[in-house]
């Protein structure tokens, strides 16, 4: 019988060894060994009481009105006798060490690692979700470990990595994110978030105080797409994106191109124009390839030409940093200086091939390249 601490230490050692050997992701969480299936309940924040023991969740625009003994849409926050609880605080069901490029965050410490964690649950249900087995599950449906914030930070430090909240939807475990990011900042460890952005401004602003970078999945650019494909709404996502941009926390956007669903020329062009107008030309925008998953296994992967065309539209609309993704080797993975047009960050897939940025400036012409480079 090994202790939990010993277990994590042994996992950590193995993970480091693999990471040093060039592995792109290390699964740290076993399916069984020390896994739990009965979640603990921790007091939730960002909610209010309603009459007759009901509560209203304030984390996201759904504002679920949750009756006693029930949960909201995300399935991870529960009303118990008129009090609201998180069933995922400190209980990640996935832990990996990833390259930061996998998030993708291309303008944030290239070539570094992200100690990535996720809990069960999501406040959307995207038909093409790549991580549906955890995002569309309740805490009881997955194996998880109890891992308080200090433990997460310690492991991130062991890996010389930032902490990244990702895979499922960090907004549904926002209290855990905030507490972990707070502990990380105290320890000199950076924190990042990968989110669908369907959140409320107040809790998001609370989290942004302790985050260093956020990547938002801008899944489509019509309300119809969000309603039909994600059980969500577009406008709250746009609002969140603007809140993040105004906060000064580094922001990147990803648009997963689902063939025939959100990749039309007008939709892409409208989106690019919105990004430039509301966020500025320097916010990176990634067009990534869809892979058949979850409820869309009958749809073919995105053709490369679509990604290239989307990137061209973005560049034509005046965005400075437009990328293709999920297709290693396809043109559009490098960062080009918007002034001299030379490759200042060369990549292939998640691998960093070359870095020509010095003190945040293009090594060739001295132009400032927006991002966090050191």
């Amino acid at each position: 019988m090994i202790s939990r601490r010993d277990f994590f230490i042994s996992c950590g050692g193995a993970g480091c060894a693999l990471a040093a050997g060039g592995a792109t992701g290390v699964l740290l969480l076993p399916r069984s060994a020390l896994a739990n299936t009965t979640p603990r309940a921790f007091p939730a924040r960002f909610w209010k009481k309603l009459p007759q023991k009901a509560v209203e969740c304030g984390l996201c625009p759904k504002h679920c009105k949750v009756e006693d003994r029930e949960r909201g849409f995300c399935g991870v926050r529960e009303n118990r006798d008129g009090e609201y609880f998180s069933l995922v605080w400190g209980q990640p069901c996935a832990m990996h060490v990833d390259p930061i490029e996998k998030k993708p965050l291309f303008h944030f410490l290239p070539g570094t690692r992200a100690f990535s964690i996720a809990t069960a649950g999501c406040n959307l249900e995207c038909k093409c979700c790549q991580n549906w087995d955890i995002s569309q599950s309740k805490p009881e449906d997955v194996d998880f470990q109890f891992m308080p914030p200090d433990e997460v930070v310690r492991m991130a430090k062991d890996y010389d990595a930032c902490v990244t909240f990702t895979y499922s939807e960090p907004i549904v475990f926002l209290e855990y994110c905030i507490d972990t990011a707070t502990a990380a900042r105290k320890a000199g460890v950076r924190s990042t978030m990968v989110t669908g952005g369907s959140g409320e401004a107040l809790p998001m602003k609370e989290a942004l105080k302790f985050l260093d970078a956020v990547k938002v999945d801008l899944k489509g650019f019509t309300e119809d797409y969000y309603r039909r494909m994600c059980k969500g709404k577009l406008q709250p996502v746009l609002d969140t994106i603007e809140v993040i941009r105004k906060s000064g926390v580094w922001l990147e956007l990803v648009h997963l191109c689902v063939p025939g669903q959100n990749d039309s020329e007008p939709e892409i062009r409208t989106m690019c124009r919105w990004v430039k107008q509301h966020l500025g030309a320097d916010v990176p925008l990634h067009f990534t390839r869809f892979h058949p998953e979850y409820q869309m296994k009958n749809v073919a992967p995105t053709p490369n030409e679509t990604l290239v065309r989307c990137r061209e539209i973005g560049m034509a609309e005046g965005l400075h940093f437009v990328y293709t993704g999920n297709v290693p080797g396809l043109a559009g993975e490098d960062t080009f200086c918007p002034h001299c047009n030379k490759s200042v960050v060369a990549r292939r897939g998640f691998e960093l091939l070359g870095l020509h940025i010095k003190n945040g400036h293009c090594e060739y012409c001295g132009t400032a390249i927006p991002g966090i480079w050191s």
Partner: protein
Amino acid sequence: MASDEHDRRRFLHGLVGAALATAGCGSSCGGARAGRDDVRLSTVVTKTEAVRAKPGKPRVVVVRNKKVLVHDYDADAGAVRAMVDAGLVALSGEKDTIAALSRYFSGDTRVGFKINGLAGRNAATHVELVDVLSAMLTKVGIEGRRQVAFDRFTRDLTASGFVDRSRAGGYRIVGNDDAGHEDDLVQMPSSASRLSRVLTSQVDAVLNLPVLKQHMLAGMTGALKNNFGCIHNPNKMHIDNCDPYVAEVNAVPAIRDKQRLVIMDALRPVVHNGPSYQPGMGEVANALLFATDLVAVDTVGLEILEGLRRKRDLPPLAQVDLAPTYLTTAGKLGLGVSDRAGIEVVEIEV
């Protein structure tokens, strides 16, 4: 099993009782009862007896017993037994309860009681009903070890008063949280789900035992919505008044094909602010509804619910944007009859 196959086919086609042939009083026994116009539905019979089915119409039998509730919530087992006897005979047209149950469940069948336990003891499927049914099934030859009461969480079952009776030769209780869900997804047009392993691995037939309740997100909850307890992600399906999600879940073959019989617990429906229990929101109706058509029984249940709400000056559900539109969707999917005019309702007072 042949009779089960036959029943399933008939259920799928939304037909009930084509083979019923025993004598009865039919609509000639109809008539209003004083002070009960809000819940009077159709044909009324005054004693336990078989009634000839109207061709092509699914039958819903509403059995009432004024003495069934004791201490406000608890049910009297003897009264429940009498109601079940009357309901099953009237529904099936068979001569007695055992023969009636045998129409739906054969001796080698593993039966799952799909209860609704989320609101706890005050607004859950009555334990007394399950106990009575379990004893009756034993007489059909289905031993207690082949019977299981299930719902989403074990804690909901225990909070609703259910206990494991297997040591005494009775039924087990299992929550989906303990039994788990299948790894593979079932795809539906609007969503996808993993099915409860209780449903897929532990039972051959479901005896659907919903509680009639108003539901603040779905409009109402009854037999169709009770099957949300057979999937892992009902939380994802409570938008848009649960439409079309309730209907699509019930169209999943693994769920649809195991539905044999519905007995809706309407002894004390929750008429407002459901589905949780709210003090003062339970309205005594003293009724159990029997059917094999889930859509039809919900349609009749809705009528009862609206009647009880009227008594409290509560508005019709449609007026507060809570019309359970999934009933119509379920009808369109061929899961049963949602047109009230197309349903035969038999009322029995015991």
